[in-house]
Every structure is written in C-alpha cells, then in structure tokens.
C-alpha cells in the first residue's frame, strides 16, 4: 500500500453517505460532513449516537460499510496511515506512560511521529497546552485527567496537523482547565487547523464551535450556527432533536 498524495484543493475532511453497522445495530446511516481549513465543527449527540464511530472512521480504525471518508483527499478506509498523517487526535481518556514525565511522554510520542522536538520546544508546547511548569518533569503516573489531557493536547499541537480530532475533550476537566483548552483550540483554528470535536458539553460548544451538527440515528439531523443561539437555547434544541429513547 503506497502513500497517497493528497489533492491540493481537497477539503480537510469529506464524509459522504458513511454507513457503519456492528452486527444488527447501525451506528451510522448515511453521515455527510465536510470541513475546511480553520473550521471548528462540534458533533453533538447522546451516548451511542455514533460520535466515536465517526472519529474511528476518520482515523481508519474502522472501515465504512458504505460511503466515503476522506482526509485531505485521502481515503481513510483504503489508506488509514496516509490519512492519519494529516490528523492530530486527542482521545477522551488520554493515556500516558506512567513511568515517564510529561515532557518525556511528549517527546516520546512526537519522536515516534517523526518529529524532532528539543527539550525547550517540548516545555513550550506543554506550557501552551496549559500544563504548569512544575508538572512537566513529574511522572505522568501522578497526573490528574486534566493534566494528561494537556499532554495529549501538546502532542496534537506539536504535529501541526490540518485536522484536529477531539473526542469528548472537556469531560472531566475542571472549569479553569476547560477554559484553557477552549482558548488553545481557538488558537489552533486561528492558525488554519480544522477541528472536529465530539462532545456533550454545550457550553464549550457554544464557546468554540463555528458549526454544530446534531447526530441522531446515525446521521446529522440538523446543523446549527451556534452564534445564533445562546447555550440554553442550544440545549433546548439539542434535547428536542434527541430520539425519545435517549431524551
């Protein structure tokens, strides 16, 4: 499988009619989504709506049963490694090597990704991600979820990828850490990074996202401009769109 060359004018993310089934259960039933440079798209939906399945399709960890998933023009199903070169990803639970410090974890992951970060650059990235300096050299085994999340953000930022995937990025973060996180993501988008975040956090969605898609029944049932609503109205609308079983 050779490395794919992305077409120059391809959108950062293009999902067309994606279907994914797990046995008799349909997780996605014709998902369509396009994302351009610098856009922040929030995928809203209850547990089991297909948010994580969507992310796994983009990362090539799963292959769509029908439809297409392209990252910068590269078919993520056919060439997942090629597609992932353009993606930075922060999972809901960022796991680190407990025996390594934050800075060692960051350098380990970035070295494996082919980057050559100096110690100073690693410290600067961790600081940019909001990790306090005294924590940089502490073993990650003693980190809180928020601190691990910040190392994950630093890994993602270091890659300067065109697409940033965030899976429930603020779950478990304290308000201050969540606010720092929002600022970091907005800054990344300001540099032209496209961001797709799967979340329940309507407050942060309202704060960060330029577009919001409500995922229900395996497809986006409504797309909203969050600037037209405050987060209370957004919550009302979101609950109204949920299937009865989950509302």
């Amino acid at each position, binding site marked *: 499988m050779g490395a794919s060359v992305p077409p120059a004018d391809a959108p950062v993310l293009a999902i067309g009619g994606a279907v994914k089934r797990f046995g008799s259960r349909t997780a996605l039933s014709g998902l369509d989504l396009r994302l351009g440079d610098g856009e922040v798209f929030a995928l809203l939906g209850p547990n089991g709506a297909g948010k994580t399945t969507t992310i796994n399709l983009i990362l090539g960890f799963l292959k769509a049963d029908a439809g297409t998933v392209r990252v910068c023009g590269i078919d993520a199903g056919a060439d997942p490694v090629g597609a992932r070169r353009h993606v*930075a990803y922060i*999972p809901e639970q960022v796991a680190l090597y407990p025996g390594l410090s934050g800075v060692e974890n960051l350098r380990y992951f970035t070295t494996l990704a082919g980057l*050559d970060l100096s110690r100073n650059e690693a410290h600067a990235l961790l600081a940019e991600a909001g990790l306090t300096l005294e924590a940089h050299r502490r073993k990650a085994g003693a980190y809180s979820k928020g601190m691990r999340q910040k190392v994950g953000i630093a890994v993602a930022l270091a890659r300067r990828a065109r697409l940033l995937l965030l899976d429930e990025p603020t779950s478990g973060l304290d308000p201050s850490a969540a606010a720092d996180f929002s600022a970091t993501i907005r800054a990344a988008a300001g540099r032209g990074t496209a961001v797709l975040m799967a979340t329940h956090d309507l407050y942060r969605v309202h704060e960060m996202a330029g577009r919001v898609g409500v995922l229900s029944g395996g497809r986006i049932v409504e797309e909203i401009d969050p600037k037209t609503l405050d987060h209370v109205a957004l919550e009302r609308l979101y609950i109204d769109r949920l299937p009865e079983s989950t509302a």
Partner: protein
Amino acid sequence: MKRIGAELALFLHDVRLRWIGAVLVLLLAVAGLGAWRDAVRYGAEVDAVTAAERARWLGQDAKNPHSADHFGIWVFKPSSPLAVLDPGSEPYTGRMVRVEAHVFNDAVYRAVQDAGPLARAGLGSVADIVGLVVPLAAILLGFSAFAADRERGTLRLALGNGIAPGRLFADRFAALTAALVLVIGLPLLGIGTLVALGRDAAGWQDTAGWQAWPRLLAWIAAQLAYAALFLLVAMLVSLRARTARHALAAALAIWVGLCIVAPRLATAAVETLVPAVSYREVRARIDAEMRPHRTAEANDDRSREILARYGVSQPQELPIDLRGLMMVENDDHHFALYDREFGAFFDGIAGRERVFAWAGLLSPRIALQALSQTLAGTDFAEHAHFVWTAEAYRRSISERMNTEIRDRPQHGGTTLVAGPELWGEIPPFAHTPLPLTRALADAAVPALVLALWLAGLVGLCVPLVRRLKP
C-alpha cells in the same frame, strides 16, 4: 535511530528489563564460568595424562612389538573451545580412547557421569539456558509490546497521532532486539572471549585449528537469531491480544509448545521414522563375525594358505615371519570389518542428525540445538571424526609393530625383541578438528530452518501490523 532510541529509553524505564537482564546475565555467567573452570581443569588433566602416557609408552621395557601393541596408550579428544558454551554431544560420547592391538575401543570419560543437579535438570550449560530460558526472557520482554499499550490506551494516542504501525513495530522490535543483544549477546561474547583468549594463551588455539573466533561470532549470531525469533512470537501475540495478560498467557503456551513439547515429539518422530542400528547390535555383529575367524582351525587354515602362497611347506622357509604376516592380515580383516560395521553405524547416526535438523521446522529449539553444536564443534560429526582419528592412530601403531615382526623373521624358536628406537618411531597422537568449512556446510540446514522460522514469523506479523487497531 532516534525512534529506536526513544523506544529503548522507554524500555529502560521498565524495571522488568532490569530484572530479566540481571537474571539472564547471572545464569549465563554462572553456567559459562563453571564450564570454563571445568574446561581449564580438563585441559590441564589432558596435558598431564598425555605427557605421562607418552613417557610410559617411550619408557616401556624391551619386548616383542606385539606385546608393545597390547601395552596400549590412552589418547584424548581435544575439546573445542566453544564446548564451554555448548558441550553438545561431548558429555555423552566420551573424550578418551584406549588404543591397543586388535580392539576398536569405545570412548570413555563421559562428563555426564560427574554432572551436578543443575546439569541433570537440563540447565547445566550456557546452550541449555539459551535454548530454554532465553525464549522466556524474550517473551517477557515482548508480550506487552502492543497489548499493554492497547490496554492502557497509549496505542490509541500513538496511532491517532500519525505514528505508522509498521514503523512502530519495526522500531519496537529493533529496540527489544538491542535489549536482548545487551543482556544475552554481551555476556556470551564475554564468556566466549575468555575462552578463546584462554586457549590462545595456552597455545592450543592455533595448533588445534578450531578457528574459535569465527565459530564464536557465528554461534552468538545463531543464539541471537533464536532469541529474536521468540521476541517476534511474543510481539505477534501482542499485536492481537486485547490485554497484556492474554498476550502473556498465549505466548507462554507457545513457549511450552515450541520449547518443551515439540522437541520431544519431534525427537520421537525422527527416531521412529529413521531407525538406526543400536550400538549393542553393532558390537554383537562384530563379535559374531570375529569369533569363527579367531578359532585355532581358522588360524591353521590361514597358515597353510600363506605357505601355499609362497610355495613353501615350512614357516622357516618363508622370507618373512609367518606370525607377523598373519597378524598383518588378521588386522586387515578386522579393519575392514570395523570400517563396514562402525562406518554404517556412524553413517546411520549422521543421517538421523540430518533429518533431526529438518525437524527444526517443528520447533526452533531443535534447529538451534543442531546449529549450535555444529558451530561449537561439539556435534556428533566431530565426535565421529575423533573416533576415526583415534582408530587410524591405533592402526598405524599396529601396522608398525606387525611389519616389524613380519620383516624380521626369527628362526629357531627365538622371539623378536624391540626397544626404545621402535617405540620412538610412533609419533604422539595428534587430532585436527573438522575444518570450519565442513562445520558451516553441516550448519546450512539448521541455519536455513531457523531463517525460515524468522521469515515465517515476519510474514505473519506483516498483515497483523497493517491491521493494527488500538
């Protein structure tokens, strides 16, 4: 290199590597240094006894040459320097032979008779440890390579951030192999160097022609290839297992299968498929064929035949000594018999060894055993070579003594008496091992089998790596 360095640094944080390394180094050092001490002691004993035997031979009284032939002399097998690492068949086949008139003696002084409890447990030599314990160490190093990351969640972060699975696998394999080289290759090289330098200093190396250095390097490469093979097994399992515990359990089950069960089954299968004549049967056949040859009647028949051949009626009329000529011809008969029977016996064992090397396809431990002994110069081919060299030496003594009697006919009932000049004509026993080229040719099949194992495992890993999921 940076990525491999990062992986190695990650492993060095793991206390497991330090424990495994310490235990392995300790085991290898204890076994290697113990064997080295035994080898030094054996070498000194061989030197002393060889000198004493030579002095005894040269200092024997004036006597009839045939009595001198029966006087006999002990000859010793010079042990391969690498026997310290892998004694191979040496402890079982004997290392000294008494050469004397008429008899093709067995080699005796089998080290296994003096073996301690560790050796009886199958862990006495460095090669035993590499064959059985090193795969365990490789498994303990490699089982968590992907399964623990999957379980912890670090694999998701790694793969989701552009790290190519193939590269990750290759880097981890390279880093773990480097760790194995550190904890296995270096101790082996250390012990091997001690052995080779010790032999060099003692002056055995060059004269014996063992070519210890190329043998040592090839031997270490074989052991590392074997360790890498089990590392691949562990990583292969780790690619699929959901948890590290599952990976460890599966890898250990494979270790039991490949290192304990399969070698026994394969050995039994080879013994069944390639039946070899037992040594007892060979001896019985030789005795049966010699018995009628040794009777007084047969002796009289041969006397008459010789007299007729020379056209005389009395032994005194012969230009040679009748008894001497009869001994020459008797020995020629025995030599032909030994060549046929023992030749077939040794050929049978060699044939079985060749099949056994192919049985390495069922277990890499078998392939390593065959390869290791061959490279170490402690395989059965080397033993057979010694046995035939000792036999050739015995024949050369018998032939010289017999021709002395044959060519100096004694008349009037007198007996020929020879002295130190004749004993001095017999050179000291010298044994040159099989050349390295022969060892390398013999090693080709087990080396190929080991390479096939490695290639097969890599072939199995490739699709799993491509489909690697967090």
